[in-house]
């Protein structure tokens, strides 16, 4: 069979055909995904291989597009909150916050102080859960099976805690315009207080079991080097840019809620490789625990929902605003435009995974296939967030 005949037979759809046009002689075009163990969902990556080396890679997205932005135009603000839990199943509460915060900024709604603390606590717990999910899944990409079980053991504790105020375990729709749906009760606060030392005792185990492991270190050190310039050009945020030494964190640089009152460090790494991103995320878990602890100490009593909180029929006042929060993967932004009508006029969701993914094509060039998988995993992609 000639090479061209092979191409025609295999390269079926538009993307593959387009990609195959620039293929060099003797290379192999491989379709990673949409169903592939290391793409964590339905991301599709077209790679051109020379032996084991990746010559080119091109992500193809859109397999999980659910029209979240369009749905905002047919719903009122309060009705749109459940959508936010579904954009990013890893860190759903941050998305809740980004949207609710945008509406509050536009309407000038003041959130009760206790609600602010409850928001921070749940958001940070969810961030730890998100990083644990990434940690387990990333090591699965690198061929270690057991860490995900240990990570889920801890993640399960967080989900049990979050289940008590939110009632859900993954796709939370917990925030309301002007507060949160339910207060944290006594038992829940107690469970969080018990969880903090437990998680602190687990992190050293993660370090000695996995982070120090020589095979893992050789797999991720020096792999997928992102220069700070590259991160800036593609708009990478979150642990991906912090792993390249850019100390940008929305919680500190564009402060919202009670974050200015809290004492925490924004971890960065100058390694710029997968190891740097790994270290940043591991350190962020420890920092989130500190944030939660000081929140529990500072948390005042009081309401968790503002008096006269907007009803579903409430109309967002006319205007335009942008609100950003720091999610587990980076900067989550909501650009909200309202013409004062029943439904919102336009909601633009800025998802960090989308910007972070765009680094992949450039960074994976010339690496081994196994390294490309390691780079893809180190971006911590959540596919539904990319497509929205």
């Amino acid at each position: 069979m000639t090479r061209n005949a092979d191409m025609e037979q295999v390269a079926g759809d538009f993307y593959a055909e387009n990609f195959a046009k620039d293929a060099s002689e003797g290379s192999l075009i491989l379709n990673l995904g949409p169903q592939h163990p290391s793409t964590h969902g339905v991301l599709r990556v077209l790679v051109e291989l020379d032996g084991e080396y990746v010559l080119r890679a091109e992500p193809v997205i859109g397999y999980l597009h659910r029209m979240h932005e369009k749905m905002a135009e047919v719903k009122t603000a309060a009705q749109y909150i459940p959508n936010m839990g579904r954009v990013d199943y890893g860190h759903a509460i941050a998305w809740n916050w980004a949207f609710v915060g945008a509406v509050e900024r536009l309407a000038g709604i003041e959130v009760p102080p206790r609600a602010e603390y409850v928001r921070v606590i749940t958001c940070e717990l969810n961030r730890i859960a998100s990083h644990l999910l990434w940690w387990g899944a990333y090591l699965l990409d690198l061929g270690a099976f057991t860490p995900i079980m240990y990570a889920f053991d801890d993640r399960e504790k967080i989900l049990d805690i979050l289940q008590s105020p939110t009632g859900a375990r993954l796709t939370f729709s917990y925030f309301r315009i002007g507060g949160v749906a339910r207060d944290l009760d006594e038992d829940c606060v107690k469970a969080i207080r018990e969880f903090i030392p437990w998680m602190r005792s687990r992190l050293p185990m993660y370090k000695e079991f996995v982070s120090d492991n020589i095979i893992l270190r050789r797999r991720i050190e020096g792999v997928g080097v992102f220069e700070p310039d590259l991160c800036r050009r593609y708009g990478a945020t979150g642990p991906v840019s912090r792993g390249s030494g850019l100390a940008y964190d929305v919680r500190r640089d564009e402060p919202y809620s009670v974050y200015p009152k809290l004492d925490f460090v924004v971890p960065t790494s100058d390694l710029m490789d997968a190891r740097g991103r790994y270290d940043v995320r591991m350190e962020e878990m420890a920092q989130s625990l500190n944030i939660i602890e000081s929140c529990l100490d500072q948390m005042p009593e009081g309401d968790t929902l503002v008096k006269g909180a907007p009803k579903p029929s409430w109309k967002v006042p006319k205007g335009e605003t942008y609100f950003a929060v720091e999610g587990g993967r980076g900067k989550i932004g909501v650009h909200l435009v309202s013409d004062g009508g029943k439904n919102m006029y336009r909601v633009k969701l800025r998802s960090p995974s989308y910007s972070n993914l765009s680094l992949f094509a450039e960074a994976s060039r010339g690496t081994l296939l196994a390294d490309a998988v390691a780079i893809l995993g180190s971006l911590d992609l959540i596919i539904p967030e990319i497509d929205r």
Partner: protein
Amino acid sequence: MNAIKQAFRTVSDLWSLMVGLRVTGKYFVEPQRTVRYPWKAVSTVGTFKGHLELVGGTKDPFKPRCISCGMCAISCPSGCITVVKRKPPKPTPEEEKAVAEAKTRGEKVKDQTPKDPEKFLYDFSLCSLCGTCMENCPTGSLRFSHNVYVAGYSRNDFQYDLVLQLREAEAQAKPARREARPAAESEA
């Protein structure tokens, strides 16, 4: 010289492999975390949001508090609730006469139709469990059940009539009540 140093470091790094074996070895002998599901259930079901259910009144726990106002249906983001109001019962000739007389006297006629819904149709397959209906209910007649064991063979299996569910609960509870009463009497 550098190469030799590097070689030695590689060998000493191999110790981390032993540490890894120690960790897995430790967990190998520790008790398991799994809850063997069909035989045992997790303890956190009590805080889980299951499907919606109607809350009964204080007098009769099996008569819904709902006043069929339809706020839930309006506020639901996914439109999964339909409240069917009761039709007024056909009046007897005497009643009709009384109403006509009252009208001629210029009095206001009170609508005698019961306010609880005829049907409360709820499509669980569309519900996103956000709780908006619950929060906007003026009488507090909706709540989430803790039923996590919902399963069905087709989409139609998830279309509930919550009023019917309440009645089924009543039918289940009735025999228990009947049994409980003689016992209580004999004690007295």
